[in-house]
């Protein structure tokens, strides 16, 4: 397409026609503020702070909406623009009750940044939302009406993106409020997409960092941190590092600085999950009749088998599709596997009483907070995981303790539970669980038959990427396995309507998988999701071991568990229940 020439603040810019003023300005390093627009959603034009003046225009224009045109002259900082923009920011400020001292946002708050940049009086108008409610969704997510600026991104996330429609807009004018629906047929799945799309922290995780701080101060406890695969490629953004920068070693050092006694890598747990899940898949392939049972029959006769490491997806099944509970793999999720192993195998090796161990998971996820409290997960009376922090919460703790994170010297996570395969790392992206399981299932399927030539592959590129539903066919155990990867819960229903087309399905509730999770740094957009994902695959490629079954530590733990009777099943498997 032919480029056009426009001017912004007198500077000549060549750009493609049809783009918005906001897009062109940002690409050229010209800042225009904006609170209500997120590239995941259609333009709303609610907040009215991205105003600009266009030469010849009768009125001010919105940079988020107005497309550039040949010869357009745009001014972003005239007196007229300043008046409207600053006034609208002041009006928005008066909707948001400042809770800065305990707000994990206060180090990079979009509102405070605007106040600073434009020298805005944040208290020009008295606060008007002091009596609004805080709605809490389990122990995972909350929406604080006293901080809401009516941008409605959470609403778009819950409806347009996730198709859950749990959040509703009640009332009109100044009385409008985001509320959970009263419809009993709809429930929150705790994915936290509302939180990761909220520009002001009104929708956010229910924080647990204060409890973790308390545990860290308690000298009688051994406090163990375990961090998820996906956070190593995202946490840098909280410290203004480039998207997709890999910071595994810095995370370990940072956690040590915070006072954690031992640091483990959940990628190790992911390798355990892969082993358990691949075995179950093979079992199901063997026992299921032809054609396989989609509904009815015993668990092991059912296909497709569906992944269960995404707790928001599990909640979705339990509430909306309890008939599919037997299709879910009984394998626990990676951090629960690892937490259970820490409190059994590792406690045994280290001779520590499990009751003195506190396991803190650092996750890209809000639903993991809910998952950790599921009573069926208890092992010997202990929850495998005691607290769950989001990526944002960890970043906040690091900043709060003035730890210069980007400058930390990388260190390695603790052995034996520290080593992990490339397969474990890619759990962080959509398609990663599937790919890891396929790598191992293909191997396990012919492990006992060494004379046969086995189809084994390392890269399953057709299940990677940000498409809503990805499908392929993979030979496993003499069967052409029809697999699908659902990227984002908003894409699930058409797949559920066609279950007989598949043998194995991975579902991640958040777009992009865990790298786009509800607990990840803000903003999270497709451009950023792609960079985080690319970093995970780069890591995978750099690993010597890229298959879960080649992780010696995992094999050792599994062997140990085999000798522990009923404990083995307790640590490795879980159960689900209908919730509607």
């Amino acid at each position, binding site marked *: 397409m032919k480029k056009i020439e426009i001017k912004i603040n007198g500077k000549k810019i060549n750009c493609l026609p049809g783009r918005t003023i906001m897009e062109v300005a940002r690409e050229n390093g010209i800042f225009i503020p904006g609170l209500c627009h997120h590239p995941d959603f259609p333009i709303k034009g609610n907040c009215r702070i991205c105003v600009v003046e266009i030469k010849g225009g009768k009125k001010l224009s919105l940079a988020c909406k107005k497309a550039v045109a040949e010869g357009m002259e745009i001014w972003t900082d005239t007196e007229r623009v300043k008046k409207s923009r600053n006034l*609208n920011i002041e009006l928005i400020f008066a*909707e948001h009750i400042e809770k800065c001292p305990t707000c994990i946002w206060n180090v990079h708050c979009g509102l405070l940044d605007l106040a600073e940049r434009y020298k805005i009086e944040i208290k020009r108008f008295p606060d008007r939302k002091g009596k609004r409610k805080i709605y809490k969704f389990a122990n995972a997510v909350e929406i604080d009406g006293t901080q809401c600026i009516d941008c409605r991104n959470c609403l778009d996330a819950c409806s347009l993106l996730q198709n859950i429609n749990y959040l509703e807009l009640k009332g009109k*004018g100044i009385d*409008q409020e985001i509320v959970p629906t009263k419809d009993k047929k709809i429930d929150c799945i705790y994915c936290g997409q509302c939180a990761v799309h909220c520009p002001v922290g009104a929708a956010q995780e229910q924080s647990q960092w204060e409890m973790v701080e308390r545990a860290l101060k308690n000298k009688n406890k051994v406090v163990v941190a375990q961090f998820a695969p996906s956070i190593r490629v995202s946490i840098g953004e909280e410290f203004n590092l480039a998207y997709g920068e890999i910071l595994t070693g810095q995370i370990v050092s940072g956690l040590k600085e915070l006072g954690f006694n031992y640091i483990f890598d959940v990628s190790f747990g992911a390798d355990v999950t892969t082993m358990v899940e691949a075995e179950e898949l093979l079992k199901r392939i063997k026992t299921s009749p032809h054609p396989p049972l989609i509904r009815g029959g015993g668990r092991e006769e059912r296909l497709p088998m569906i992944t269960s490491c995404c707790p928001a997806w599990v909640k979705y099944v339990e509430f909306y599709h309890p008939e599919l509970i037997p299709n879910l793999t009984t394998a626990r999720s990676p951090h629960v596997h690892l937490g259970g192993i820490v409190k059994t195998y590792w406690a045994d090796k280290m001779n520590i009483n499990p009751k003195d161990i506190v396991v803190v998971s650092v996750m890209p996820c809000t639903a993991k907070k809910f998952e950790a409290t599921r009573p069926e997960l208890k092992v010997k009376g202990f929850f495998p995981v005691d607290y769950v922090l989001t990526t944002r919460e960890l970043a906040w703790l690091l900043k709060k303790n003035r730890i210069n994170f980007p400058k930390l010297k990388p260190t390695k996570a603790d052995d034996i539970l520290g080593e992990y395969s490339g397969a474990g790392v890619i759990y962080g992206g959509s398609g990663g669980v599937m790919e890891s399981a396929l790598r191992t299932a293909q191997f396990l399927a012919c492990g006992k038959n060494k004379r046969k030539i086995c189809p084994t592959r390392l890269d399953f590129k057709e299940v990677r990427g940000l498409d809503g539903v990805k499908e392929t066919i993979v030979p496993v155990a003499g069967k052409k396995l029809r697999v699908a990867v659902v990227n984002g819960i908003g894409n699930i229903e058409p797949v559920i309507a066609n279950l007989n087309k598949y043998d194995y399905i991975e579902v991640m509730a958040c777009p992009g998988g865990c790298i786009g999770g509800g607990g990840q740094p803000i903003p999270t957009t497709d451009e950023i999701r792609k960079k985080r994902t690319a970093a995970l695959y780069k890591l995978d490629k750099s690993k010597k071991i890229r298959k879960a079954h080649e992780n010696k530590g995992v094999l050792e733990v599994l062997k140990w568990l085999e000798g522990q009777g009923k404990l083995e099943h307790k640590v490795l498997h879980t159960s689900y229940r209908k919730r509607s």
Partner: protein
Amino acid sequence: MDILVKIKKAGLVGRGGASFPVADKWKAVKKAKGAKKYVVCNASEGEPGVAKDSYILENFPEKVIGGIKIAIDFLKAKKAYIYINHNYHKKFSKNLIKIIDKAPIEFFIKPIESGYIGGEESSMLNAIEGKRIEPRLRPPFPQTSGLWGCPTLINNVETFYNVSLVALNQYKKERFYTISGDCLWTGVFLFPDNWTIEKILKETKNYPRFPFFVQVGGEASGEVLGSRQLRQPVSGAGSITVYSMMKHKPENLIKSWLDFFLNESCGKCTPCREGVYRLREMMDLPNPDWQLFSELLTNLEEIAFCGLGIVVPVPIKSYLNNVLVKMPASKINLRKLDKKTICECFR
């Protein structure tokens, strides 16, 4: 002669208030690509002080339906909706249904709770589609992407009535005027569209003998004019409201306009949702910051989301400039507002 040429020749403009040339709108919908097209007749008449659509539906229903049918034929539209307020539906639907007969024209009763914004054209489209009743971002305009994304022609009751007259060669450049307020002969009158406000008031024997001012084009969004500014035709929706100077205190007037807009704001955009709330809040302060008050009004004019937000300043600013500033200083009596401030801040 082609109906479009006739409409153009007659110089019809929309009678919903915006006075958009009818021929241009019809042409745009005709030209727009789409397998399905819709026609909507806006009979919501939500502007206080305007009652001419009700009068037309009562007295000339066949002309209104005739105009809608002409539009359906012209556009080969799939269907037409009469978006009608609840009371009018109760009163007129029986008769209208008879006239509609087998034509593809349906009623859509404006949801009661939708209020003022429910009459704004893109909000109306959302209402018919069952969505939250709020304005849509434009472009795209309804002419190319209206109901369910299809090209849609939206005109007011009086406009369709006029189209019928044009088709029958009976259009005489007249329009309906609703007269209300502090006068004896209130009601709906038909006069030439270029008559001045003064002439209309005199002709209807409503020209007051007491000190007064008027608001034309609606009691909420209409412009306020002093008694010496009446030698001009009525703009916007055809209405004249007469206010006695004695009866209407400046403070009460401004508060009542703001109360109306505060109550009716849909809440979508910051300038209207928050701005109107703050304007109203300031009217209760003993010593309001009039500079800020004026900035909030200008902000609405500049960048409110929809036409209804943009007009919030119209009655207030025109009242201050056309009426209040001309009163003796001692009589202004509005929260320490003086002439100098009006001239400096509200021009």
